[in-house]
Each structure stands twice: as structure tokens, then as C-alpha cells.
């Protein structure tokens, strides 16, 4: 049972989002003698200190917490960067939807839709190849015209631009979502 207690404490520290204090652990494991819990934690910390593992238990803010080891920082950063790359920021999302629903569109037309300057975001979207330049508008200054790309379609699992949800479909689902969130809160 003591072996099991060590495992229970381990899973509790793992799932806890903030440093888990000894008091908290004891307040949950009421049916176990305190000295058994102390012993389990001691053994757990020892095993993490001696075994070669990629994760460790650190003590912070008066509690125990899992963390990665600093020597793996390079890989973790690389992983998170790759994960982040696959996601678009909310500014990029807004700009992209403005373009998707109003293409062909020029840079000057986007702020009218978004309410903010969008040239930076547009550059990012071009770099990510989510949009492409398809020509120039025959109007003063001959501004560049943008459209969404094939990569955009792939990213959102669309077969073609006609697959975008229609305004009716969206407002239906948005109404739903609102009700849903209200229920949840």
C-alpha cells in the first residue's frame, strides 16, 4: 500500500496546475497516516532525483510541481515553436477571414473591415503562404490585389472557397454557441 501511496502522490502532483503543498496532499489523503504520506513523498523525490528522467519534481511556492529539466530547454522551445507555427494569431485569423469573404481585396480595404492597420498581419499571411497576390487594381495607385491560397484551403480543411460556411450557417452556430456558453456559466 505504501508503494501505491507513492504513486497516488505522484499522480496528484502531475495533475495539479499549481505547486501542490504538503498540507493539500494530506487534506486529500485523509485515510492515510501522516507519516506514511511523508515517507511516500520522500521516496518519490528520491526516485526522481536518482533515476534518469526527462521530467523532475521541483519545489516552488511552498509546494511540489512537475517541470521539464533546463538542459532540455532547446528541444522544448523548438517543439513549442513548431506547435505555435501551426496556429495563427487572432489578428491573423481576423485578417484572413476578412480576405476570405471579400476576395479579391486590396490592403487598403482590410482596415475598413477590421478597424485596425493590417499591413503587418498581411505580410505574415503572405510569408505563411495563406494568401497570394493575384494582380493590381485599376484604381489610383494601382494597389495589389490579394486572394486566399490553396494552402489556406488545406489549413482549414476546405475543398474550395465555396466550402466556407455561409453567413446563415455561421450566425446559426454563433447563436447556439452563445446559448451554450450561457448555460455553462
Amino acid at each position, binding site marked *: 500500500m505504501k508503494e501505491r501511496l507513492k504513486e497516488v502522490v505522484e499522480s496528484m502532483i502531475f495533475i495539479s*496546475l499549481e505547486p501542490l503543498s504538503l498540507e493539500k496532499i494530506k487534506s486529500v489523503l485523509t485515510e492515510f497516516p501522516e507519516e506514511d504520506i511523508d515517507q511516500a513523498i520522500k521516496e518519490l523525490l528520491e526516485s526522481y532525483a536518482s533515476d534518469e528522467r526527462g521530467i523532475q519534481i521541483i519545489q516552488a511556492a511552498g509546494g511540489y510541481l512537475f517541470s521539464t529539466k533546463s538542459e532540455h530547454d532547446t528541444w522544448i522551445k523548438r517543439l513549442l515553436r513548431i506547435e505555435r507555427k501551426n496556429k495563427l494569431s487572432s489578428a491573423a485569423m481576423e485578417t484572413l477571414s*476578412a480576405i476570405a469573404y471579400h476576395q479579391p481585396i486590396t490592403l487598403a480595404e482590410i482596415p475598413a473591415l477590421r*478597424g485596425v*492597420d493590417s499591413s503587418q498581419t498581411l505580410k505574415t499571411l503572405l510569408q505563411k503562404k495563406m494568401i497570394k497576390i493575384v494582380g493590381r487594381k485599376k484604381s489610383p495607385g494601382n494597389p495589389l490585389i490579394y486572394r486566399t491560397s490553396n494552402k489556406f484551403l488545406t489549413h482549414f480543411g476546405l475543398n474550395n472557397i465555396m466550402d466556407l460556411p455561409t453567413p446563415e450557417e455561421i450566425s446559426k452556430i454563433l447563436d447556439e454557441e452563445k446559448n451554450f456558453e450561457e448555460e455553462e456559466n
Partner: protein
Amino acid sequence: MENSPSYQVKLEVFEGPLDLLLFLIRKKKIDIHDIPMATITKEYLEYLNQKERINLDREAEFLLIAALLIYIKSQMLLPREIPIEDERDPRQVLVDRLLDYQKVKAASLLLKEKEEKELQKWKRASIPFQYFEKEMDSLEVSLFSLAESFFTLMKRKEKEEAQIIKGKEFSIEEKIKEILAVFEENSFLDFFDYFYEQESFEEALASFFALLELIKSRIVIALQKSHFQPIKVWLRDKAPAKRT
């Protein structure tokens, strides 16, 4: 009308008319491949006639299957020039549907068991706080958040168009001071509230550049728990270290 205790099952417990039919078929120990149409139709209609059991919203769906039952029954009664064995059994449509539904229902029971088992395994809902800040500005993107952003924009645009006042100049420096003043009284600034309060598009734009400037110089940080959640701007050194 039969009223034995085992019959006192509320219609609401059934997922739909097919579920009710399967229940009656099992109860009467009927072979699903050889359904006595007269019996099952009678049973089904009797059940339906107990009006108090029926949620009116769903009545139409139950009646639709009732109509199908009656139709098949009538087909069975029609005098035929050629023996029934030589043509398609009129019950086949119903049998196919029941078999398909039975499979879906059984699969959903099996999935329910898997869900039960899986829900006992807890996964980390978050990542350790030292990486948290960097991840906060990223949002999981789906087709619907794409469209949602669009419609939020449209609504905002409508409001802005009604409020455009020309001629006044706004300084970004002034706006930076204004934003920082917010933090003297509040721990955070609500992004949407703040921009809705701006009187004109020009003013909102100046405020937005001010905010960008503050973020760029790492004085403030904008956090969002997840999509559809409010965006909150915090002084960087007072920002919550993690999600709650």
C-alpha cells in the same frame, strides 16, 4: 390499454421512434427478420396513444414511423397476383433501418464504456507556467473561429461607421498614459470593453497603437484563456502566472 408496471416507461427515455420499436420487439421476443406487422403496429400505436408520455416536440418523429408501420401493414394485406416470396418483402425497409439503428445504438454503448474508462485517466489541461506566457497569444484555429472573427468584425464595423467623427487628432503618447492610468485602479484592462468605449475610429486606432507599443516594450501583456474568452491586458509583472 396495457398498463403493466414494466410498460410504465416514459417515452422520453427513448432516443426516438426506432429505439421504441426495438424495445417493443425485444419485449415481445419478436424475430427482427420476421416482424408480425399487425402486432407491432398495435403495440406501437397503443404506446403512442398514452399522450401524457409524449413530448410534443418529438411527436412528429414518432408519428412518422407510425405511418410507416401502417403503410407496411397495408402492403402486406394487399391481394397479390404473384406470391410474396417472389418480390421484395415490404417489411425489408423497416428491418434494414432497425438493423442499422441497432448497430449504431450498440456502438454508442461500447463507446460509452470507453468514455467511462478514459475519463478516469486525467490529462494535464495545461503546460507548466514557465512556458505559459509565450503560449497565451496563440489560439487554436478552427473553421468556426475563422468565421466567428469575421462576424464579430462585421458587427464592430457597423458600430464604428455610425460613430465616425472627423477632425480630432489623437496622440499615441497620450493614449499610452491613459492606458497606464487604468492599471492604477484596476489589475487588468478588458480589451473589448476598452475599445468599445472609444468615441471614434481614429481614437480607437490611436489607442490600439498605444497598446501595441506597450506590448512591444514588454510593459503589458494581453492574455486570453481560450477562444471566445475575453482578452485581458495586464501589466507584465502583475500578470497571472498561469491559467485558472
